[in-house]
């Protein structure tokens, strides 16, 4: 059963264009020029109850505008929108009781008070009875492992701890849909990993549908079976996340740091070739010709390699005794650009 449906959903912003300089400012006092910008265009989308969908796109792609329309914060310019049987921008309380939204950098917590104080407020706002409140609070306190943090001032918590509290506040009334806008922004790897684990569990155990907007490929790849990619306000991909990454995530960026000075640059290719030859069992070795050195200093090396050659590249680097190695996926913008180019040739959707 679909709990969200949109058809040809469009949002156009009207914005003031001021000519450059003081004279432009003075002229604009009596004559103003406006331009229209479509943030979301003809967007068709459906979400089934219990789904966990990733919304991917570079900055300004229209992800947040879409989320704002789905939650009723802003009104669409045109198109059809139905969320749990409601037109969101009517802002009916029956509608608002059934979803929650967490915006990474906008908090519902009272910083000078404790998380328990905010939870108590939200208990009343969502009209929960005492038993239900205590049970849900206990469930999330255990799940997030924050029992000892419930009675300390929120402002003294770390960013990761604060995000856990933010999620607790959002999930207290057991919403049918949870909208998450960049929940892991600014968090370190450990905290992001924890948040991802909690979200997975909440989705699985409580059946909460989740729409996750994130810049981080790891958030999407570990959490979402389905991904929707937005570019310039249009949907350019809607399908399985593993297929998305298999088709469009082509490279890995490897960064290694060394305590000793690096050997000459040409050795890297030779080591890589040997490693690839070893992997191929001595037959038809591939040449690591597409390895691109992005940065090279005496103690640091960053290379971009095709993802299927990442292990060979690591094997080539290991003999030089790196003190630290990180492997990153293609950045979201790169992937989206590839999908967009593919889409313009009619292959993405």
């Amino acid at each position, binding site marked *: 059963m679909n709990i969200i449906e949109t058809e040809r959903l469009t949002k156009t912003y009207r914005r003031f264009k001021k000519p450059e300089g003081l004279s432009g400012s003075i002229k604009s006092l009596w004559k103003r020029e406006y331009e229209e910008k479509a943030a979301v265009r003809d967007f068709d989308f459906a979400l089934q109850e219990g789904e966990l969908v990733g919304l991917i796109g570079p900055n300004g792609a229209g992800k947040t505008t879409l989320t704002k329309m789905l939650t009723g914060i802003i009104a669409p310019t045109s198109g059809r929108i139905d969320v749990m049987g409601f037109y969101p921008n009517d802002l009916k309380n029956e509608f608002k009781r059934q979803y929650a939204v967490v915006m990474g950098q906008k908090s519902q917590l009272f910083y000078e008070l404790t998380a328990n104080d905010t939870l108590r407020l939200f208990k009343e706002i969502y009209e929960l009875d005492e038993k239900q409140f205590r049970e849900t609070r206990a469930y999330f306190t255990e799940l997030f492992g924050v029992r000892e943090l419930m009675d300390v001032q929120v402002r003294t918590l770390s960013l990761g701890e604060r995000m856990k509290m933010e999620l607790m506040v959002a999930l207290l009334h057991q919403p049918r849909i949870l909208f998450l*806008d960049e929940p892991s922004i600014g968090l370190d790897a450990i905290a992001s990993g924890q948040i991802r684990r909690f979200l997975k569990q909440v989705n699985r155990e409580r059946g909460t549908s989740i729409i996750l907007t994130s810049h981080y490929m790891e958030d999407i790849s570990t959490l979402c079976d389905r991904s929707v990619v937005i570019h310039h306000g249009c949907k350019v991909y809607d399908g399985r996340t593993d297929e998305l990454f298999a088709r469009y995530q082509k490279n890995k960026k490897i960064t290694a740091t060394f305590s000793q000075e690096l050997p000459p640059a040409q050795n890297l290719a030779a080591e890589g070739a040997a490693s690839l030859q070893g992997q191929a069992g001595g037959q038809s070795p591939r040449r690591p010709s597409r390895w691109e050195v992005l940065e090279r200093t005496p103690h640091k090396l960053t290379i971009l390699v095709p993802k299927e050659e990442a292990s060979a590249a690591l094997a080539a680097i290991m003999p030089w005794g790196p003190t630290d190695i990180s492997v990153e996926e293609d950045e979201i913008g790169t992937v989206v650009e590839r999908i967009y180019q593919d889409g313009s040739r009619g292959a993405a959707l």
Partner: protein
Amino acid sequence: MNSDFLSGYRKYREAAAINLKAQLAWRADVVFNMLFTVSKILFAYLLWGIIFRQRDMVAGFTFHGMLSYYIISSFLSQLELSGGISGEISARIRNGSFSKYMVLPMSIQGYFIAMEAGVVAFYLAFDFLAAAVWVFLFRIRFAFTGEPLVIACAALMVLLGLLFMVQLNFYLGILTLKYQEINTFLMIKNNLVSLVTGTIVPLALFPEAVVKLMRCLPFYYVTYLPSMLLTGRCGEEALPGILVLAAWCGALQLVIGITWKKYRKRYDGVGI
């Protein structure tokens, strides 16, 4: 907006309570607020003491009558803290964080009224304490009416007055949806309120024609008339005053409803 406010009073009570708790979080703030109240009374005592050295009466007030008026009026004006609401709403609409109120299943205006009530409860307690201590220390012969009906009218008027000011500031705040920038409105409102509420000088010092005009405006009933009622004056204006103020509250609520309905869709939540 109104039906929400009436149906779920517990959520608004909790919103008021959490704002009261937030006020109590900072001990230094509590102490400095009391010192500020005390210093205002001290300055008034010195200032009016100099003026009354050369005469016994000023505009019908004795020295102690004037101080009583000043203490009550200053106490009431310190309770009127809604000025920040318009600025906060305006800033939040402009930076997009107003969304946090839009997603909650409660009236946004009701939430702001509840927040204000929580803050007022805090100041009510501490300012009352400070004022009482100073009345005792300066041995002011406090001129306070003994008529229960007048006291009840004054209390109701204070409540309606505070509600009106929250409504007014909420209204000015949501005008940001149309005008984007409301600082000029706020400046005009602040100057008008300071003058018309009688917090700068008692309205009795103005010519009668001006006072008549002010009686038609709601500001006259926010701090000035309740202060006069509580010091035993203008008793005949109590009931008409309540009616005028209630009419203003009703009218402004209507305007808020229309404005919100008309301009709500202009909110673009930019910044989130």
